[in-house]
């Protein structure tokens, strides 16, 4: 087969010819195999490999969206964003080989002036929260690090510097408890329907207003599809398609920065733990809401140092993260007398003209309940009793209503011991002691005695088992002041898009209506007005010189194991109040001693008017 008739080669033996023939056949077979395989890969399975090749060369990057800004009611910026270069490690892209992995992390630790154990611990802890998400090792890294990593990318697989948005707080700690913080979504949160579509590493509001209004503030991340080479590095001009990130919408709060600043400054000036609320009595819009001690929300952006974590989370006494205005659990002292008064009037226990003799003490079943400071005010009607804060007067009302349930009925209606509907997480319900509550406890053997008159006498003056907080007191006062509307307190006011168009306004419906005689409210407010601004009133020394008419009540609550807790709740202007302010200061002494001056500071800021010299923080009669 290899020879042609016209060619004269050497005489080839048949044996050789056979061997060459076999050689040729093998060659033919081998080429046939190659051709067939080539045809199989390229023609028969071409589609499959085209898909694999595309999968090979494209990567999707999520481009995080900036969160919306948070503004106060006058448009002042409370929270905005800044960009920051963050050094991130993607644990899934680190070398699988433990030795190489360790070596890389060692290099990395050296690069950021940290140590291997610290880097490892950070990665481990972050992975516990959100497995698979890139771990931020350091924020605000310099450009030199960016260049260094770019040049040495092959030595640092899985390490990248990303431009991220970080929350910026131009007013520092202002309104920290309201604002809350953002943080990476946790594994549990990823499963919640509210966060559908998010991925590990995405950030959401974790607390405060950032949490409640997260769906407006969050925005939606963009997707960038780029062509990459085998090292996963984007190639030049390799952008394939992209969806731009949509920034979050801006949220306007009802907070008035002036009021907020005044309230926080007032608390800080006293240097004691406490909280304050300032609320519009008709709409429930919160103009100010604060707690002391406070914290810097910027510090909550990980990575935290251990010292910061300890300061923020571990101190049980100062507990700076706790918002005492909404989650405090305190007896309210005499500020509760407004509720007792309304209950007594509306249940027919007394009329505005009913006189009760205050001899300095009330003895019930062998137990003597005395006025604070040993005072005795003689025969009193309701308004003067509020003015001087006669305990015996209200002890008597408590005694009269001890098994009727009227006091609890009205306290419950005004919102004591029940949820308020506030648009912030972490609010406490508190506790309103009732006959049934104590008797049930007694039957269960958890307390040594059943409900007695003494319990109700205590409650009538805001003592005993009562647990409430400034927010609930503000709501109760507002309800009396506005004619019976139990407002829903809220901080969120409206959502604007980036162009300033209003997308949504928040005007939550009142929780309920409470019906009472207009005369009852008038008498009570008159008594509170006298208490604040008539000579002999409990807080006259504080509010006597304030140019705006107000109605305010002091409170001095006794807490076991603590010095007296100072309270003040004030409605202004009198007689048609627009706002209510409630202040409490732990271990602050008499109401007029610390809480009332703090409330005065807030009202001064709100009205822009200052108190004339007559009053001062030095005065103070027992509340």
């Amino acid at each position, binding site marked *: 087969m*290899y*020879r*042609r008739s*016209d*060619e*004269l*080669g*050497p005489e*080839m033996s048949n*044996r*050789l*010819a056979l*061997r*060459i023939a076999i*050689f*040729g056949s093998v*060659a033919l077979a*081998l*080429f046939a*195999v*190659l*051709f067939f*395989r*080539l*045809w199989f*890969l*390229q*023609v028969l*399975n*071409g589609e*499959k*490999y*085209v898909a*694999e*090749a595309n999968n*090979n*060369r494209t990567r999707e990057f999520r481009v995080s969206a900036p969160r919306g800004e948070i503004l106060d009611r006058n448009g002042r910026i409370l929270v905005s964003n800044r960009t920051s270069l963050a050094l991130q490690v993607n644990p899934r892209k680190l070398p*699988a080989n433990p030795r190489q992995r360790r070596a890389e992390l060692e290099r990395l630790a050296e690069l950021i002036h940290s140590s291997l154990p610290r880097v490892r611990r950070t990665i481990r802890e972050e992975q516990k929260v959100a497995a698979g998400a890139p771990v931020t090792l350091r924020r605000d890294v310099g450009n030199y690090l960016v260049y260094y990593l770019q040049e040495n990318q092959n030595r640092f697989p899985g390490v990248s510097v990303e431009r991220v948005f970080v929350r910026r707080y131009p007013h520092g700690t202002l309104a920290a408890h309201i604002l809350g913080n953002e943080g990476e979504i946790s594994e549990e949160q990823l499963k919640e329907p509210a966060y559908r579509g998010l991925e590990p590493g995405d950030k959401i509001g974790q607390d405060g207003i950032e949490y409640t209004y997260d769906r407006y503030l969050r925005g939606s991340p963009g997707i960038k599809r780029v*062509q*990459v*080479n*085998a*090292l996963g590095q984007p*190639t030049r001009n390799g952008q394939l398609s992209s969806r731009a990130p949509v920034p979050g919408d801006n949220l306007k709060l009802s907070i008035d920065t002036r009021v907020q600043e005044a309230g926080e400054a007032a608390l800080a000036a006293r240097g004691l733990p406490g909280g304050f609320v300032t609320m519009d009595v008709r709409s429930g819009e919160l103009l100010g809401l604060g707690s002391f001690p406070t914290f810097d929300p910027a510090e909550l952006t990980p990575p935290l140092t251990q010292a910061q974590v300890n300061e923020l989370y571990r101190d049980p006494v100062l507990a700076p993260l706790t918002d005492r205005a909404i989650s405090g659990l305190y007896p309210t002292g005499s500020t509760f007398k407004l509720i007792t008064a309304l209950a007594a009037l509306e249940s027919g226990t007394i009329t505005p003209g009913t006189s009760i003799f205050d001899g300095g003490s009330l003895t019930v079943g062998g137990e003597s309940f005395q006025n604070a400071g040993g005072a005795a005010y003689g025969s009193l009607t309701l308004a003067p009793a509020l003015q001087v804060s006669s305990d015996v007067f209200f002890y008597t009302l408590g005694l009269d209503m001890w098994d009727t349930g009227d006091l609890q009925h009205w306290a419950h209606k005004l919102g004591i011991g029940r949820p308020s509907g506030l648009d912030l997480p972490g609010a406490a319900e508190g506790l309103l002691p009732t006959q049934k509550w104590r008797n049930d406890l007694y039957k269960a053997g958890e307390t040594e005695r059943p409900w007695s008159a003494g319990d109700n006498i205590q409650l009538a003056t805001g003592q005993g088992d009562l647990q409430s907080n400034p927010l609930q007191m503000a709501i109760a006062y507002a309800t009396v002041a506005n004619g019976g509307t139990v407002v829903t307190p809220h901080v969120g006011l409206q959502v604007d898009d980036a162009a300033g168009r209003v997308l949504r306004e928040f005007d939550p419906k009142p929780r309920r209506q409470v019906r009472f005689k207009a005369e009852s409210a008038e008498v009570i407010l008159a008594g509170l007005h006298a208490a604040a601004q008539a000579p002999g009133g409990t807080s006259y020394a504080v509010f006597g010189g304030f140019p705006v008419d107000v109605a305010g009540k002091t409170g001095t609550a006794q807490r076991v194991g603590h010095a007296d807790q100072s309270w003040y709740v004030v409605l202004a202007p009198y007689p048609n109040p627009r706002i209510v302010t409630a202040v409490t200061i732990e271990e602050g002494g008499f109401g007029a001693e610390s809480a009332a001056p703090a409330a005065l500071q807030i009202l001064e800021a709100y009205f822009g008017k200052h108190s004339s010299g007559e009053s001062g923080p030095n005065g103070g009669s027992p509340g």
Partner: protein
Amino acid sequence: MMYATRTRRARPEPFALRPGIAERLGLPYMDPALGLAALGLVAFGVFTLGQATQHDVPGSPGYFVDRQAIYAILGLVGMYLLARIDYSRFRELRVGIYTFLCVSVSLVFVFGFAARGSRRAFDLPFFSFQPSELGKLLLVLALAGFVIDGARRGSARQRTVRYLCLGLAPAALVFLQPDLGTALVYVAITLAVMYVGGVRWTHFAVIGAALVALVAIVLVIAPAVGAPVLKEYQQQRLTSFANPSGDPSDAGYQQNQAKIAIGHGGTTGQGDRATQTRLDFVPERHTDFIFAVIGERYGFLGAAFVLSLYALLVWRALRIVTLSKNSYGTLVAGGIAAMLLFQVFVNVGMNLGIMPITGIPLPLLSYGGSSVLATLLAVGVLQSIHMQARLSQKGRFAW
């Protein structure tokens, strides 16, 4: 056989020709199909290399292609010169050639520079040279001479053992460089020359059995008892084609990527839209995996065309085996044919995912001056055999 028919008609009758310029250059006595196939492959190789590597060395788009082109031109000149020499002289020089072969591949141990952990090449001024590439041709020339020379000496068994030892000695040296792929080519050449030289079938059966046992020992038993013959990466490469994986540090990854690239080419190829071989997904794309570049850029049509040129090359080589005027030419042509066939099949098969990764370059296409030069010289030797056959038919001899 269509081509053969056409050549027959087209070939000028040497007897009738007046000595023209073509006659004086010896062109009518050469095999034009063989020459064109080699030329086509070299040209296509340089062209593909130019396209595939223009961004590889920043600021120097022609880094690879320029070097390859220089070697190709040197190789083509060398091919022509060899074609005009009577190859039979190499038979007389067999001992010298063989000695040169063994010394040159050994010298690498002393003077060679290391690339990726193995010493294979000399670093001469301006270029490097890899003696084991030229050694393939030298082994063919020397071994064929020994076979002819020893045909009458010793028993059949002794001869077989002698040939085997002569062939496997340089193979062992190359293996120690370490260069497993080239060593395997030496083994293939040795067996092919022995085969064409008439070694008995029974001997081949024994050699075959020994090979199977050797493979079993090298790949399975030796590593199991803790005395590995192969380096870890060699072992991995040899076995991973059976179970490719997605781990880039894995040898199977390379092969998988090459397969994806070739499949991505489809019927007509991706041209400049090629991604896999352009974006570093396919490693060693200018050397061992150049066929994947061709497959992705030019598709089935381009890759099949290249394979056809190789088929033509091997076919013409086998034809020259039968044409040779003497047995030495037959053996040399057989050895060269086997050398080409083995390298093409193993390399293309590796690209297509049906052969293990052994680091054998694709003749005339892979980047590597020594390889291109050696292959073109081998083609020159084939041309020489063809020319001598033609001239002997005519009763004339080359100058």
